[in-house]
């Protein structure tokens, strides 16, 4: 799967994109965020509070219970502030 990070999430992680295999035991976007948090370091910092984050799968906003598949593009970012 492709993971994309935007705004302060990207800054904290020091990268905007990575590719990984769907980790075992991960079936929702919340579980994916928890998996990333458990990497520790900057990931623990960025993913410590999912309430401060939003997620999209394949370029559509999703809730934390949305299912993720290995072919998905999943993005994590703060609440949007355009306009």
């Amino acid at each position: 799967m492709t993971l994309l990070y935007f705004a302060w999430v990207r800054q904290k992680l020091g990268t905007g994109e990575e590719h990984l295999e769907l980790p075992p035991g991960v079936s929702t976007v919340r579980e994916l965020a928890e998996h990333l948090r458990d990497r520790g370091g900057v990931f623990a910092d960025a993913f410590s509070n999912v309430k401060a984050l939003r997620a999209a799968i394949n370029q559509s906003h999703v809730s934390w219970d949305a299912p993720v598949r290995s072919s998905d593009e999943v993005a994590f970012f703060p609440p949007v502030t355009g306009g």
Partner: protein
Amino acid sequence: MNTIRIQPDDFDIATEIAALRQAYQEAGAIVTFTGIVRGDDGVTAMALEHYPGMTEREIVRHMEAAEARWPISGATVIHRIGTLRPGDNIVLVATASQHRHAAFEAAQFLMDYLKTRAPFWKEEIRGGKASWVEAKEADHAAANRWP
């Protein structure tokens, strides 16, 4: 023929109005909203990033929702990205319709959803120090008034 452009360059409101008039000669009303960078609290510049692909999809989705809801002929949304300074244009929403109510309401609807759903993020720069702008509850309340 809705128009969506995400670009670093400025836009010219008169040119965009003329394009809508040309495309929709039946239109009796064109409403435009222009968002401008404010120089609040010593802001010297603003940096805007977005999620290419998703941004356009979200705007298309909301243009289609506006068309389903109001009898509008068409709409234009232009959003700038990159580094902007106080007084610069950020966003243009223009709607064309036969009658003014639809044009006014559709423009407000599009703007409210741009603020709360389109994946843009602003960073404010004050004296060389950058900080991410936080989402405002008032913007979500504004978007939630459209059931």
